[in-house]
């Protein structure tokens, strides 16, 4: 095994008869941020907990910075984690929250003070250091949780839906900030989210998961343009991909932005509805090959009867039964 970064080798986790993780293998080099993306119950949080050591594995191996940590106690893994709920200690001040872990590790008082001051400054928490978690806003709590995770100079940083408790606008503002703080450092980052926009905005690569399997791992662009199966194609992209009625065991997928209206040829369509999106509009069309959603410019007034077409190069073909991409 190469040193540096995180490697998962065929990680499985079973709970009774249920399989939560199925032969998960992935590699995250130091400095890279990998997002685990998927619907709830897909195994993304379990993967994170397994790396942290909070949940045991049934089989497989975990390597971190060249060390086999599969059976190592969570407290000895050098993992910094931001929990979905932030999990701050409510009875301690911001400073107390940061100090507890260092104190347990017998870091000297002078060193503790130095490290805490540095991290408080980095995350702009200096003024808040005597407050209790209850006296902080959601965004401030997130920063404290982040400070606690980064404080120990971890070998890896794990984040479990760190944005899910924040409002939409704050989320948009925090994305670049989070990326600046986390990515490109000496440690790899695993970022769990169910929000594709967040995954694309923060991560270098994305692993799409469902039912305990990694469906596909690659850059956002790869996943969007070259999905390996129907699940990935449907999960990524808003508005969602159009799936036409199956023909001879195959199903055609078309992204709404790839459909355009034509004067002759193409497919006959009837306009059944319009959704105004501000900078664009989404047309709902009824055709003999099924319903279609089409993204067009906002100032075009479509007729009720129209003809639509698309480039053949944009077609994504899936096998009807398995959902595997064939072309």
């Amino acid at each position: 095994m190469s040193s540096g970064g995180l490697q998962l080798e065929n990680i499985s986790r079973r709970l009774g008869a249920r399989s939560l993780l199925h032969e998960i293998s992935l590699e995250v080099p130091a400095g890279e941020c990998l997002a685990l993306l998927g619907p709830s119950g897909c195994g993304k949080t379990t993967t994170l907990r397994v790396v942290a050591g909070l949940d045991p594995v049934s089989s497989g191996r975990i390597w971190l910075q060249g060390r086999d940590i599969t059976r190592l106690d969570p407290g000895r893994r050098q993992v910094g984690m931001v929990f979905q709920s932030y999990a701050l200690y409510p009875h301690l001040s911001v400073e107390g929250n940061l100090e507890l872990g260092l104190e347990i590790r017998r870091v000297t008082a002078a060193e503790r003070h130095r490290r805490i001051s540095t991290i408080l400054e980095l995350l702009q928490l200096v003024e808040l250091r005597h407050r209790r978690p209850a006296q902080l806003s959601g965004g401030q709590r997130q920063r404290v949780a982040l400070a606690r995770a980064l404080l120990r100079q971890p070998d890896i940083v794990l984040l479990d839906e760190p944005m899910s408790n924040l409002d939409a606008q704050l989320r948009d503002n925090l994305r670049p900030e989070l990326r600046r703080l986390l990515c490109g450092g000496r440690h790899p980052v695993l970022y769990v989210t169910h929000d594709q926009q967040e995954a694309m905005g923060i991560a270098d690569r994305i692993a799409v998961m469902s039912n305990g399997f990694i469906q596909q791992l690659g850059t956002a662009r790869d996943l969007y343009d070259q999905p390996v199966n129907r699940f990935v194609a449907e999960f990524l992209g808003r508005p969602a991909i159009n799936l036409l009625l199956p023909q001879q065991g195959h199903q055609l997928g078309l992204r709404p932005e790839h459909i355009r209206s034509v004067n002759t040829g193409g497919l006959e369509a009837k306009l059944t509805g319009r959704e105004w999106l501000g900078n664009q509009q989404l047309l709902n069309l009824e055709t003999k090959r099924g319903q279609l959603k089409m993204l067009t410019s906002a100032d075009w007034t479509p007729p009720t009867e129209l003809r639509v077409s698309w480039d053949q190069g944009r077609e994504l073909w899936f096998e009807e039964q398995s959902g595997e991409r064939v072309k």
Partner: protein
Amino acid sequence: MNLRRPIIVAGLLLWSLLPLIWQLQTSFRTPDALVGGSLTSGWTLENYRTVLQGSPSFWRYMVNSALVGTATTGLTLSLAVPAAYGLRQQAATLKRGLLLLLVAAAVFPYVLLFLALLELARQLGWGNQLLALAIPYSGLSLPLAVLLLQAGIADLPNEIEDAARLEGLNLWQRLHRIVLPLLAPTLSSTAILVFLFSWNEYPIALTWISRSELLTLPTAMARIAGSSIYAVPYGAFAAATVLGSLPLLLLVLLFQRAIVSGLTQGAVKG
């Protein structure tokens, strides 16, 4: 201005405080004044003098009760906290079964046990051993204490402990640095209940203890009340009750401060 609320509140206060006020004033009256004297005469401290200068002094019983109460509370909590903490880690079905068992034990009328307990005390030579009382008292308090504490522990978010595990806190450190501080409100209310039970308990104390210098408050008071069949010493008895409830009052006021609600607010979510 709406007067209905203040009147209702005043009525409720009277309803609940009047017996206490009655008891308090009885403790300061001479026996003659109690039956048809006027309010301006017949006030005395004699009742308190009688009670406190008795042999042994009333203070002795207070100390006895306080010793038993403290030992009971300490023993109960030191067993109930690990038990409640352990319950959380159990599988759901086993946990449900254990909780049912605890509820059954908590509501069991313990008076049914006291003959058996007496027999035990005799076998073990625990009769007239003041602190030995703490053992049956703890045993009887444990089910309720574990139930209360496990409810408090169940309210603590799992992720807080996960975070502590990642930071390298071992089991003892997590219990000591995270769980117990967060449990302080539950812990103090449980402690009060246990102490109260021990402070008020009668049948076991009556049967286990016979030497007068080892009596606890309830049994000592019964002796004051039943010291003569011709005259019931109402005044002395009232004085004893007032003195006996003062420490409890003090304790509740003291613990009230520890029962800070909302301590866990902000631990989880925004």
